[in-house]
């Protein structure tokens, strides 16, 4: 087997030097101690580091590491899956395990400029084997060991790597086999071995202890590398191996989580390159995210393309209007843009509902961006979006994965203020004159403004059955919801109309609350009014979520 060819292929896919060696099947620990030097023999001399240079132009990765440290705990090391260099398992020595959580994060960020040399995160190990990511881990381990003051002169180390690395290894292996059918996937050197031989050796010098096998040393340092996209990335396996995960889902009591190393290995066992590709698997290490809030001015615009039976119902969508200028910056065709851009919004409004105020918080996730967009380009993109006349985006700023979690969590906690244009359709039971035309009276307005049915800060506690419009795809439930604030006012020259502003708890169906939906929502605004009433138009006036994060 041509080592050079495999090296080139892996490098081209975006592997780090150490991973290239793993795929070649190098088992010599020394090779991993300085993999960058070791691989020089695979580089063609007349075109030195050609791939390096190309990659460096993608100045995207500011390797943002958010480090958390979990508490130390004493536990017995049951390393039965380690068929490593340890001799055999010992009996229960009272070993100490140190867990260091080290987050692998690969957000593309523009600022602040990092003095550190920028490295492209490896698509295979997600940075686990890349020296530039180690310093923080070394420090964390050292600090913890100093604090604990273990006198033991040896240590063993173990890696808990992101499960997504298994999926990525499979994709790369299949790519190699695709190119070189005689390639034997079994030659792959396990990630944890390569890591021990490189990270472990350097850590040994840093903490001044001798690296030993877990069977011998009573001190075990477990380094836990978290990859925040881990579970999201593994979602595609449900498409690759639907039965397996359906089984696990059914036995939810037995399997707390869907994705474990074991289940992922099972799912990957028979996977082919085409099945993985069809499911949407990608080798991407870099994701950039931009955020802001969008203001929607149209009552005829869905958030995402509305397609029914393969035909477009409406010509455009918020998503398409926002994506267009971004795709233009990257010179992406429509299909490419659709694949690489993802709109993540804090909820969505109905097609016929406008979203005003500061707009609805959203983020755009750019998968595998070829570069970072400049402030100028982002400003220009906002201008172009706003020129649509249907959507306004005031600014776009880069964010991190953590911010995104806030956006997603916000969906369950945020309250919203709505403005609704309403019509009174019959005399109320309080109206004294039932012969004159129906009109909204100042008494009606007072009644709405003072109505409450709780003793708490909540103005109106309501129950809502699952609305009929979504009942075909959601379970029938009766939910308790809250109207937190409520004010109403008359509309000049329109005696039957009135406008209400209501702040509602997350998950409240506000249209249904206004008209009562055949009394399936109660008490509805019409019940407060004690007259038939309906909704003519609805706006989201504010989404109460601090966004973008400061």
């Amino acid at each position, binding site marked *: 087997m041509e080592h050079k060819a495999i090296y080139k292929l892996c490098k081209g896919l975006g592997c780090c030097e150490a991973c290239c060696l793993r795929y070649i099947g190098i088992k010599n620990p020394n090779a991993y101690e300085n993999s960058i030097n070791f691989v020089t023999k695979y580089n063609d001399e007349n075109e030195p580091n050609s791939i390096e240079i190309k990659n460096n132009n993608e100045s995207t990765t500011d390797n943002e590491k958010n480090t958390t440290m979990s508490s130390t705990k004493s536990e017995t090391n049951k390393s039965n899956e380690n068929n490593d260099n340890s001799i055999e398992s010992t009996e229960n020595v009272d070993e100490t395990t140190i867990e260091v959580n080290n987050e692998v994060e690969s957000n593309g960020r523009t600022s602040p400029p990092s003095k550190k040399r920028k490295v492209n995160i490896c698509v295979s190990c997600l940075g686990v084997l890349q020296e530039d990511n180690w310093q923080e881990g070394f420090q964390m381990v050292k600090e913890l060991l100093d604090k604990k003051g273990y006198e033991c002169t040896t240590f063993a180390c173990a890696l808990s790597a992101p499960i997504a690395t298994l999926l990525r290894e499979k994709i790369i292996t299949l790519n190699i086999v695709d190119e070189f059918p005689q390639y034997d996937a079994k030659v792959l050197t396990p990630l944890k071995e390569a890591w021990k031989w490189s990270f472990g050796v350097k850590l040994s010098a840093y903490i001044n202890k001798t690296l030993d096998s877990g069977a011998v040393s009573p001190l075990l340092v477990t380094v836990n590398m978290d990859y925040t996209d881990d579970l999201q990335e593994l979602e595609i396996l449900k498409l690759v191996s639907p039965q397996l995960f359906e089984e696990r889902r059914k036995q939810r009591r037995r399997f707390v989580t869907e994705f474990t190393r074991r289940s992922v290995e099972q799912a990957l066992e028979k996977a082919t390159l085409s099945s993985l590709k069809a499911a949407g698997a990608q080798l991407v290490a870099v994701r950039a995210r931009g955020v802001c809030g969008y203001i929607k*001015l149209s*009552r005829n615009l869905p958030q995402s393309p509305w397609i029914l039976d393969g035909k477009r119902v409406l010509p455009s969508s918020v998503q398409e209007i926002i994506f267009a200028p971004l795709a233009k910056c990257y010179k992406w065709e429509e299909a490419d843009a659709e694949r690489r851009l993802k709109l993540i919004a804090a909820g969505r409004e109905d097609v016929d509902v*406008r979203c*005003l105020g500061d707009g609805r918080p959203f983020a755009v996730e750019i998968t595998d961006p070829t570069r970072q967009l400049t402030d100028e380009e982002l400003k220009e993109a906002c201008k172009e979006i706003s020129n649509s006349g249907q959507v306004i985006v005031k600014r776009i700023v880069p964010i991190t994965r953590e911010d995104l979690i806030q956006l997603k969590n916000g969906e369950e906690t945020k309250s919203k203020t709505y*403005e*609704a*244009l309403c*019509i009174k359709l019959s005399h109320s039971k309080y109206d004294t004159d039932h012969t004159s035309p129906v009109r909204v009276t100042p008494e009606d307005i007072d009644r709405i403004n003072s109505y409450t049915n709780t003793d708490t800060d909540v103005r109106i506690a309501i129950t809502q*059955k699952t609305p*009929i*419009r*979504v*009942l*075909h*795809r*959601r*379970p*029938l439930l009766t939910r308790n919801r809250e109207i937190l604030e409520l004010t109403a006012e008359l*509309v000049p020259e*329109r005696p039957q109309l009135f*406008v209400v502003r209501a702040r509602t708890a997350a998950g409240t169906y506000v249209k249904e609350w206004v*008209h*009562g*939906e*055949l*009394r399936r929502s109660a008490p509805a605004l019409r019940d407060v009014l004690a007259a038939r009433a*309906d909704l*003519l*138009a609805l*706006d989201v006036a504010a989404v109460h979520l601090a966004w973008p994060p400061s």
Partner: protein
Amino acid sequence: MEYNILDSIDLNDSTIYKSFTDRYFSKRYILNIDGIKNNDIMLMFHSNRITLLCLAPSHFFFKRPDNYSLNFTVGEVDRLSNLVKGKGKKGGQMLTPKSVICKVQWSDGTSFNIPCCMKGTLIEINENLVKHPELLRQEPDSDGFIAIMLSSIAISEATKKELLNHEEYLKRVNSSL
């Protein structure tokens, strides 16, 4: 305010004043069920294959001013104990067009049945009718609906095609007067 809600719609456009049921449902009718004159039912189809069971305005029920009560126990089956679980609405009572949903009992002891007129699953009985049976008379095409049913797209579409639409219904009812 910058984008005034009053300017955002055309207040002279009559379609914005359509009632809730007229906005979202299309009405279909079955007349003289079981050969009984004016034993007329209205089904309201939502585009998502949810269907509401209602009495048609021409039903003989509306011609009689007597007091009545509603009975949702049909033979062995208690319609009020209907329970559906999950997205799939598992456990809902199965319905055929002849299935009786509710019995209307007049104060003189006579009664008539309300059949559901289509194949599907019972999702929900209008619980408000239990406390407020007068809704059946006062708001038969909205808050006085009888039940919510769900069927497959195929059945929903086929039934819709087969039954009288609103114009055909008006023609038939007016010519039989």
